[in-house]
């Protein structure tokens, strides 16, 4: 502890949160999660009632609490009569900070006292108590868990949370893992989410197709966030600060997708000392490093990951294993004294297999994403425009991003070539005005996508895994939205918004109204309801039926490819049973219009036949019992029931491949001393599948000899299908376990882990493969079998 006292000055940071949905969580708050150097960053929140005020207090150095000296930003001097702040250090471990505010102000308090960071809205005193538990547990970081509970409670108390689940990066990593922690695989464990197979990191939300999910990195779109055919996501573990998943009733600031929004927020370091992590798994090595600067007003972090199997094998034989994937991500944030905040995120990922250098003689390919985005925001107190007050405070945000996704595959002298490129550039902004019981947000977004899809093959054995076509799109969209979060009484929150999208070159334009409400029956019990309309003008040629979907094959909308629409209605109930345990149930109903289903008879030489128009519905209910907090156990039990139907243009109904009726996930981790034990139990009903009822031998016609011949040494076997999705795969059963040991070695936190996927080696077919040439057989293409994996994480 003396070392702690010597190393750094005390910093107390009070980040007063925002009004519901008006802003993203303040980065300083998110940063509390990951000190990364083993020194506790502790925060505990106590609020009076369930009013909108939120506060988080972090003390990184308990020994200096006695010198805590809270002062106000000079800009707030005029409001000082409305604010009273007192810091009364009681012991070395506990400090009490009281803040009383009588109006809506933005305030940030630190030992050096200068910067505005957030806003509290309350007419009643708010009392925040900071309690540093570093005394009892100087190494472990229980604060990471308490922060999760705290954040969720804040969301419950201050926002409408329809269909939204938020998890910290640490929480996501506590579940058993396949080879290494993965955001998208963890998301698949949440209720309402299901995956077509274990071979894909993609997911389906509330019965929607897998291309209906808007995946964001710090708010910037990322189009195909997968590696190795979907086995891994592109998100590097240590860079993930928080993940927020919205499954329905999407706020109007989100557009362009029908089903969900997954927003991954970058972690921001809290320590002013250079620190980082190194992780080595069976597949890859990860390194990250970061620190704060400018007295904690800025932070940066950079991380990289690369698989190393090729390097190891190449030591023995050159180019024997010509495949690897790699990522690099950097995040920079800087806050200035005038309330301005700038953040920059850059990501670049690549899968590379074989040798592709422009020659037409080689086999291989590369694919990957690149994202660069910058956001500038400014919080203003008592803003005015044209002499009129805009409210008590306001936050203005401006965003600019460029996203690229590129796939290139070459097989055998260009007999098969895949080239899919998406370039997305967008600029957007919003103004959130806080006044009285209203938070009004106005925003816009201009986006342009250039999409080229050139996949040709002289043979079709690749089937539906690699859709063959040649298409080009240049889509543009202009979006305007307005949103009002209104709290007419302390027990009711209503959010209503309207989004206008206009899409070129289709000429389509449409309004997407959305409304949601939350009513508090008690401080710990609320009911929610919402409805919304959504539009999507980018689509994937990838087929849900395929258990392996290596990419998301994006194409745009045009005269042949209409804009898809969906409407949903949700209703739910959320109850906090204890301060760290919550129960959430939500029912949903969703109807699709002009849904585009990839045409299995698509002709690669013809344009306009890529999709079949379809309609459909999805409805069901999600159940989530979640244990948060700093206790020895955290986890959740999630159950989903869903029923999905699609109807073709000629009126035929069928169950889509993602129609999983029942899905139960129990995920937990237990801390016992230095050990953390994790387990995941998954039980899910079978997915629809189309049975193959027989085969026949097809010959080719040779116009030179006028004979029917075989093109292979054996007759070409072709299949006879039964009715579409008229059968189901068997129930899916899987238990994963993991153990993690936390310790210190040479001054670093060292955490080796062992994780076993499918410990019972349950045979879970992802698809059936048939052979009718000899004795007719049905073989199962399996999901993940028993796979033990291990690795180590080192934080320094």
């Amino acid at each position, binding site marked *: 502890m003396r070392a702690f006292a010597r190393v750094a000055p005390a910093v107390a940071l009070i980040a007063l949160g925002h009004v519901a949905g008006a802003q993203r969580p303040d980065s300083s708050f998110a940063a509390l999660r990951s000190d990364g150097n083993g020194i506790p960053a502790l925060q505990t929140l106590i609020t009076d009632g369930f009013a909108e005020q939120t506060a988080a207090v972090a003390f990184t150095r308990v020994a200096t609490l006695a010198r805590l000296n809270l002062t106000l930003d000079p800009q707030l001097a005029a409001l000082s009569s409305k604010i009273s702040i007192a810091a009364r250090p009681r012991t070395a471990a506990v400090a009490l900070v009281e803040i009383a505010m009588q109006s809506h102000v933005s305030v940030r308090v630190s030992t050096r006292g200068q910067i505005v960071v957030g806003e509290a809205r309350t007419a009643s005193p708010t009392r925040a108590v900071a309690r540093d538990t570093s005394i009892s547990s100087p190494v472990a970081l229980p604060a990471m868990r308490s922060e999760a509970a705290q954040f969720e409670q804040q969301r419950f108390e201050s926002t409408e949370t329809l269909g939204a689940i938020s998890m910290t990066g640490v929480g996501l990593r506590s579940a058993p893992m396949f080879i290494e922690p993965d955001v998208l695989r963890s998301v698949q464990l949440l209720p309402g989410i299901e995956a077509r197979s274990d071979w894909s990191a993609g997911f389906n939300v509330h019965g929607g197709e897998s291309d209906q999910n808007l995946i964001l990195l710090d708010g910037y779109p990322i189009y195909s966030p997968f590696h190795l055919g979907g086995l891994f996501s592109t998100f590097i573990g240590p860079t993930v600060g928080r993940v927020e998943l919205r499954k329905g009733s999407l706020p109007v600031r989100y557009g362009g997708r029908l089903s969900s929004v997954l927003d991954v927020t970058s972690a921001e370091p809290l320590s002013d000392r250079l620190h980082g992590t190194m992780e080595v798994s069976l597949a890859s090595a990860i390194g990250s490093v970061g620190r704060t600067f400018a007295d904690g007003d800025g932070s940066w972090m950079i991380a990289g990951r690369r698989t190393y199997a090729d390097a190891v094998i190449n030591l023995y034989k050159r180019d024997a294993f010509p495949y690897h994937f790699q990522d690099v991500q950097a995040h920079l944030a800087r806050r200035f004294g005038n309330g301005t905040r700038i953040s920059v995120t850059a990501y670049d990922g690549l899968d590379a297999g074989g040798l592709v250098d422009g020659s037409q003689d080689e086999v291989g390919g590369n694919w990957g994403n690149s994202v660069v985005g910058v956001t500038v925001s400014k919080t203003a107190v008592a803003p005015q425009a044209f002499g009129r007050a805009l409210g008590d405070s306001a936050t203005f945000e401006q965003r600019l991003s460029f996203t690229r996704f590129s796939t290139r595959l070459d097989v055998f002298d260009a007999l098969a070539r895949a080239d899919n490129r998406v370039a997305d550039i967008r600029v957007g902004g919003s103004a959130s005005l806080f006044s009285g019981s209203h938070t009004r947000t106005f925003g816009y977004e201009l986006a342009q996508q250039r999409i080229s899809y050139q996949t040709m093959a002289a043979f079709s054995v690749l089937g539906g895994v690699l859709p063959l076509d040649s298409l080009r799109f240049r889509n543009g969209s202009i979006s305007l939205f307005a949103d009002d979060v209104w709290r007419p009484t302390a027990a009711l929150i209503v959010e209503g918004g309207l989004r206008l999208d206009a899409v070129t070159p289709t000429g389509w334009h449409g309004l997407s109204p959305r409304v949601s409400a939350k009513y508090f029956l008690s401080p710990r019990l609320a009911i929610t309801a919402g409805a919304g309309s959504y539009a999507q003008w980018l689509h994937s040629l990838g087929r849900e039926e395929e258990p392996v979907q290596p990419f998301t094959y994006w194409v745009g909308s045009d005269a042949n490819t209409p804009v898809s629409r969906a409407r949903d209605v949700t209703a739910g109930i959320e109850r906090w049973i204890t301060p760290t345990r919550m129960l959430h149930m939500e029912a949903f109903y969703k109807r699709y219009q002009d849904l585009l289903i990839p045409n299995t008879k698509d002709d690669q030489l013809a344009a306009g036949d890529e999709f079949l128009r379809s309609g459909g519905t999805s409805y069901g209910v999600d159940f989530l019992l979640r244990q948060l907090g700093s206790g020895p156990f955290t986890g959740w039990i999630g159950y989903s029931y869903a029923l999905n139907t699609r109807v073709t243009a000629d009126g035929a109904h069928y169950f889509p491949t993602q129609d999983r009726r029942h899905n139960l996930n129990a995920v937990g981790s237990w801390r016992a001393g230095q050990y953390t034990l994790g387990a995941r139990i998954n039980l899910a009903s079978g997915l629809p599948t189309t049975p193959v009822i027989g085969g026949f031998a097809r010959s080719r016609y040779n116009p030179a000899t006028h004979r029917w011949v075989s093109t292979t040494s054996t007759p070409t076997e072709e*299949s006879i299908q039964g009715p579409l999705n008229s059968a189901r795969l068997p129930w899916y059963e899987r238990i994963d376990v993991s153990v993690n040991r936390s310790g210190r070695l040479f001054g670093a936190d060292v955490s080796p882990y062992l994780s076993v996927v499918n410990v019972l080696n349950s045979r879970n077919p992802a698809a059936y493969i048939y052979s009718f040439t000899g004795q007719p057989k049905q073989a199962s293409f399996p999901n993940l079998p028993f796979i033990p994996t291990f690795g180590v994480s080192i934080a320094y």
Partner: protein
Amino acid sequence: LHTDIAHRWRALLALAAVLPVACVDQQIIAPKVDAIFVQAVLDVSTNDQYVTVETVDGTIKHQKAIPGAQVAVITPDGHTLAAEEIVDSETVVISPAPRVTTVYRLSLAKYGVGLIAGGAYQLRILLPDGRQVRGSTIIPRFDSALAPPTPEPFDVSRDTLALVWPRVTGASGYEVTISSQRGLFSLFADTAVSLAGDVRNVDRRAFYAGLTHQVVVSAVDENYYDYFRRSTDFFTGEGPIGHLDGALGVFGSIVPIASRTLIVH
């Protein structure tokens, strides 16, 4: 070097496929299909058109020809041309040996007619058990028959075969076939193709040194194109696209529009 890389890549793909497959469960199944399988192509370059009619019960080895069927083609002007049943060992050549089977031969010379460019033809098959098969095709338009090509030398290590052809009215696609004693290599293209000497697809090469190769570019109708342009999807089991009423298979038409003879060395 390129071959080595390709082989390594294939080995990698095979390994990736074998790993999960090593864990698969297999079970014997008993298909219960009762289908008719018909393959018929009207080829404007020959007088004899062959139609195969087979039964399919779902097991490949049980697939066999149906004797005693009444096979007829109805011309655009309404004439019915009946095919004769023959037993033949050359019409259907399945490696490694020809298959002696019953086929139905339609001899246009017997009726003194030829196939009409742009004409709509119908196929009618009546099986001994009373089941019927119907199909129709529209022959792509063509100008004249091809002249026999002059043999040309072709060096597989150096030469590239480049072919360009005009669009043909009524054609849904263009098939390039390269046949030799080693078998048939075929692909579909738009209006041009460029094939290096070492070109190959998944299971065979296009050119083999020491052999004479017949290269034919054919304009094909929609039925033929749909039926042959794809193979069964490995995972989903979706098979060829058929347009016959009452049977699996194809009744299509082709028009050879270019040909080359290559002496490959």
